[in-house]
């Protein structure tokens, strides 16, 4: 019995270790290269040097934000996959990210954030995400069976509709808002506001903690709703709570970093291969490796055509989109 616990602990250490290595690597690399052996002395020397401010004012916030967003999106992916019993659903493919982005751009265009404060941005992202998740789910269950292709198609269409609406807002809005909205639709970890970074970190940690109260229910749901019911799970209530959680995670991520697609698809896909289906280990593994994955993608995005910078969504989009097509054409879908 404790053999299993030990195995899990080893996986957590491995994923945590990889995350740490990627973070340190990302700290050292960039337009101005700081050798790894310099990092530690720089910390000791303290503030004042240019290198110190590059590390702690430019790179570290991005790494911390990458940790929060990558973890949150990956976790949202695992939760949604567990509920819909399909490895291809995640915040982006279901259109939830699009809904959140729409919520955020409405907020910017109407200037709600000027009145309600910067924290109203994640809240409007959450509301947009929740709305889409409710639409997608009610459409998918209307015939009592989850038809997965229809579900994904609905998600793609919702993404289309919301990006069209965002474009409409862009056409109608003032030029000063335009930059802000474009930034959100592309997805980037460059976030000058420390408060939003802190919110993102808090929300993602909150998400991983809360998700553990659902680990057995998610395990039961992976057999199907009726079977979960047979195992004594109140499926209706559980689903509602999980939708709420997935919406908070996605909405907040999108509000802070914009649409970063496929993190919740790529990461759980590979993590499952290593640790299996049990959500007790899957949740934390997906969280840690999602964080590592996004930090790595962001490092690539800002170094690949340095000194110019790509939006990180470009990298995850190319990787994730290819994997999505591969997984879709593969006959046997694992899960």
């Amino acid at each position, binding site marked *: 019995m404790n053999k299993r616990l030990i195995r899990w602990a080893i996986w957590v250490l491995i994923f945590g270790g990889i995350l740490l290595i990627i973070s340190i690597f990302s700290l050292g690399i960039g337009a101005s290269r700081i050798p790894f052996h310099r990092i530690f002395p720089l910390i000791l020397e303290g503030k004042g040097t240019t290198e110190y401010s590059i590390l702690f004012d430019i790179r570290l916030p991005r790494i911390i934000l990458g940790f929060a967003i990558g973890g949150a999106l990956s976790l949202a992916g695992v939760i949604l996959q567990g509920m819909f019993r399909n490895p291809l659903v995640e915040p982006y493919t279901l259109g939830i990210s699009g809904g959140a982005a729409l919520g955020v751009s409405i907020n910017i265009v109407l200037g709600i954030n000027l009145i309600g404060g910067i924290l109203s941005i994640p809240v409007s992202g959450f509301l947009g995400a929740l709305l889409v998740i409710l639409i997608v789910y009610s459409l998918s269950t209307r015939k009592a069976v989850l038809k997965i292709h229809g579900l994904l198609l609905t998600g793609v269409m919702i993404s289309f509709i919301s990006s069209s609406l965002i474009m409409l807002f862009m056409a109608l809005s003032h030029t000063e808002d335009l930059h802000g909205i474009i930034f959100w639709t592309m997805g980037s970890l460059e976030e000058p506001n420390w408060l939003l970074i802190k919110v993102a970190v808090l929300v993602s940690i909150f998400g991983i903690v809360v998700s553990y109260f659902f680990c057995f229910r998610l395990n039961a749901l992976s057999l199907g709703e009726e079977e979960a019911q047979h195992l004594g799970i109140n499926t209706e209530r559980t689903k509602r709570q999980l939708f709420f959680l997935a919406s908070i995670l996605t909405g907040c991520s999108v509000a802070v970093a914009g649409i970063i697609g496929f993190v919740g698809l790529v990461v759980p896909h590979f993590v499952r291969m290593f640790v*299996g289906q049990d959500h007790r280990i899957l949740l934390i593994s997906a969280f840690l490796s999602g964080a590592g994955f996004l930090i790595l993608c962001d490092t690539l995005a800002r170094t690949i055509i340095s000194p110019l910078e790509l939006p990180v969504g470009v990298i995850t989009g190319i990787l994730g989109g290819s994997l999505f097509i591969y997984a879709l054409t593969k006959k046997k879908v694992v899960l």
Partner: protein
Amino acid sequence: MNNIILDVKDLVSGYDPFFLKEINFSVKKGEFIGVIGPNGSGKTTLLRAITKVLKPKEGELIYGGENIWQMKSQNLAKKVAVVAQNPGISFMTVEDFVLLGRIPHYKKFQFMETKRDLDIAKRCMVLTDTFRIRDQYVGEISGGERQLALIARALCQEPELLLLDEPTTHLDIAHQLGILDLIKKLNKDLGLTVITVLHDLNLASEYCHKLLLMHEGRVYKMGSPEEVLNYKVIEGVYKTVVVVDKSPVSSKPYIFIVTEEERQRRAKTKKNIDS
């Protein structure tokens, strides 16, 4: 009268356009009940009503003196386990799959299985002869083995009442008998009350104490195999000509089918004799 564990009173349940109507029956502790009836007669719907998947429109379901809709799902799952017909199969080992049956028994902040949980899972696997395949993946074992793993998972819930939905479909006769012999053994040795949906009338006749014949959403007849399985009843419900005799082995009712060709040949012979 206290040994009645399940009491179904005036139940109306289902979803458009199919409804169960005026269902009344009760199940005593230790009984082995077979639910039979043509396709679409409401057998599976009845099971789904008992397991709280379908909400009753009218009437009530009393389990052990309590209305099941007033019981917590978790508490019901400690008493009633289900072996569904088309269960979701997740990518996990047989042992992990069987252990899912312990979920209703976990305490609020329990994170790992206790030794007791593992012991119970092992016992259930040994009982169903799935212990030897405990490390194989559920998606990769044969249909018969999967059925056994499902039963093991249900037993892991330590239920008083076991519900099965056509546990023998898609299995060869050896596996059919294997499964039903196992269920019979559980019924006899552990005192487990069993309600199982069966398609095969002869298997139902051999194994069940009581049969519940469903027809168009209603209970057409309930009673011992001898009472339910006579040619008039079967022809009335299934609209098919059959001959009912006694099994030479168990002297339970045995149904012989009559093909269309045979029926015509006999009709002709009869006409010839008449003329």
